[in-house]
């Protein structure tokens, strides 16, 4: 019983934190109060569940307890006008725990997501606030995940909540006319979270897990949005490769050299299911196309069996949608593999001439790689040296040094 109740509290924390915070912000309009009350509610759960048993609907129980704590706190502090309006809101919300319906929860959580990801907040603030309020990660944990100090992160969170309150950023799901733009803003926050976790060592993988869970939550709350499913699929495909991306020494392993038996099959299947559901809507978008590309890689038995012609076509569509030079560079890589290095090189040279990516090491690394394959070793070495000058991470510099050696021109 004791162990059961303990794991029930831990599970409720995972599942319910964001829901209960969202419901209490919805009731009081006060973000700090809501967070404090939810913390109180979990403390109470840890004390009483082992004794009285786990309630049938833990979320509703936690919301009621949190709401009552809110009333108590406000009574104690008794700051007249402020608490009167908040207390009125809490009282109006009713007294029975059954009063909080599941779909009200859903609405509040969606409101919370859109408010945390409001474009009037800085990107850093959006990310931190989303993690703190929706996933229940502590300020210290978020600070560690973003390699910054706890006071800095705490200040960032305080400032964000202050801006929401003082500038009156609405706590709501945006109306239909604003929804497409605002939804893509939410997806950008989630994907940034994921990439922060993905670029780092495995210790920060928790960010990838949270990002995938958030995408699932958005899909649940706002069903029928194909780009949400597209992002979910994309992250599943990437995350499935996490074990194979680094070798035992912590060095990056190229996709074509990865041990595919270490890819997470179950997660690839989840990605495929999400992508299939997304494509059924017939409204393709950048995340769905990127997921389709990732799916070609994830489902190929080896690099040679990968559908490079299809991948090149997907990149072409993506270039048209995003007009991004990085996407065009990726297309060049796919075309080079499908149609030969010469054809790919012509596309790369066009990107070089365009100039936008002149500080991007992968542009010169790619060009060097294609020149090597064409046997133009002197030019290849020159390009890889440029890439080496621009590369920032140690793992990438070591990788490029190995490529430079392969050209046989590393001393000249």
């Amino acid at each position, binding site marked *: 019983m004791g162990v059961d109740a303990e794991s029930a509290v831990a599970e409720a924390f995972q599942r319910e934190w964001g829901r209960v915070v969202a419901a209490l912000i919805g009731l009081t309009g006060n973000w700090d109060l809501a967070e404090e009350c939810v913390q109180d509610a979990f403390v109470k759960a840890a004390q009483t569940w082992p004794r009285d048993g786990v309630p049938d609907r833990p979320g509703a129980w936690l919301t009621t307890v949190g709401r009552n704590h809110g009333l108590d706190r406000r009574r104690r502090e008794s700051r007249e006008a402020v608490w009167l309006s908040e207390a009125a809101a809490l009282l109006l919300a009713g007294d029975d725990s059954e009063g909080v319906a599941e779909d009200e929860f859903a609405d509040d959580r969606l409101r919370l997501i859109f408010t945390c990801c*409001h474009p*009037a907040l800085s990107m850093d603030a959006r990310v931190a606030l989303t993690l703190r309020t929706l996933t229940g990660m502590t300020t210290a944990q978020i600070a560690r995940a973003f390699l910054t100090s706890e006071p800095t992160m705490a200040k960032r969170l305080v400032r964000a909540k202050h801006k929401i309150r*003082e*500038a*009156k*950023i*609405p706590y709501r799901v*945006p109306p239909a006319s*604003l929804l497409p733009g605002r939804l893509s803003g939410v997806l950008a926050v989630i994907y940034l979270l994921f990439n922060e976790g993905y670029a780092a060592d495995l210790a920060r993988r928790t960010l990838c897990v949270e990002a995938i869970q958030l995408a699932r939550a958005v899909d649940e709350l706002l069903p029928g949005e194909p780009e949400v499913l597209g992002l979910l699929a994309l992250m599943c495909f990437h995350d499935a490769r996490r074990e194979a991306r680094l070798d035992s020494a912590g060095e990056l392993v190229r996709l074509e050299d990865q041990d595919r038996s270490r890819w997470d099959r179950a997660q690839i299947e989840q990605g495929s299911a999400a992508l299939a559901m997304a494509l059924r809507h017939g409204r393709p978008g950048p995340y769905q196309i990127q997921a389709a590309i990732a799916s070609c890689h994830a489902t190929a038995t080896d690099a040679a069996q990968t559908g490079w012609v299809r991948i090149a076509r997907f990149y072409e569509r993506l270039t048209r949608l995003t007009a991004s030079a990085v996407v065009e560079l990726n297309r060049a890589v796919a075309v080079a593999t499908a149609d030969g290095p010469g054809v790919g090189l012509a596309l790369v040279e066009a990107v070089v001439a365009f100039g936008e990516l002149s500080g991007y090491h992968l542009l010169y690394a790619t060009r060097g790689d294609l020149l090597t394959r064409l046997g133009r070793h002197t030019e290849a070495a020159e390009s890889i040296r440029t890439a080496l000058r621009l590369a920032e991470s140690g793992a990438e510099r070591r990788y490029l040094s190995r490529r430079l050696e392969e050209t046989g021109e590393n001393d000249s």
Partner: protein
Amino acid sequence: MKYMLIHYIDEAILNAEEDGAVHLDPAVDRELEAWDEEMEARGVLVGGGVLKAPRTSTTLRVRDGELLITDGPFAETKEQIAGYSVLECTDLDEAIEVASRHPTARFGTFELRPYLAQAQ
């Protein structure tokens, strides 16, 4: 909620306009009037004003009892304050919607600042 919508426009444009060297496109002028009328009718535009060119401005402060006066605007930047509107909106989203439909949004920059609750 009351917001001040501060209009920033390229200083060169503001000076040229005041010199009479360039004139506002009549189409934009009509759009400005239409915006004013619509937002007043909606009850969101409750005040505002247009300022003379930045070169007419004077900056001052008192430090250790000494009055320091300088010619020109506070910050020497390309974009300068051209005027302001006072908006009474439900929330920031409404204020953003109102501002985004003002013609200046297409060639200038807007800053939206909430008023302190007690201020008039």
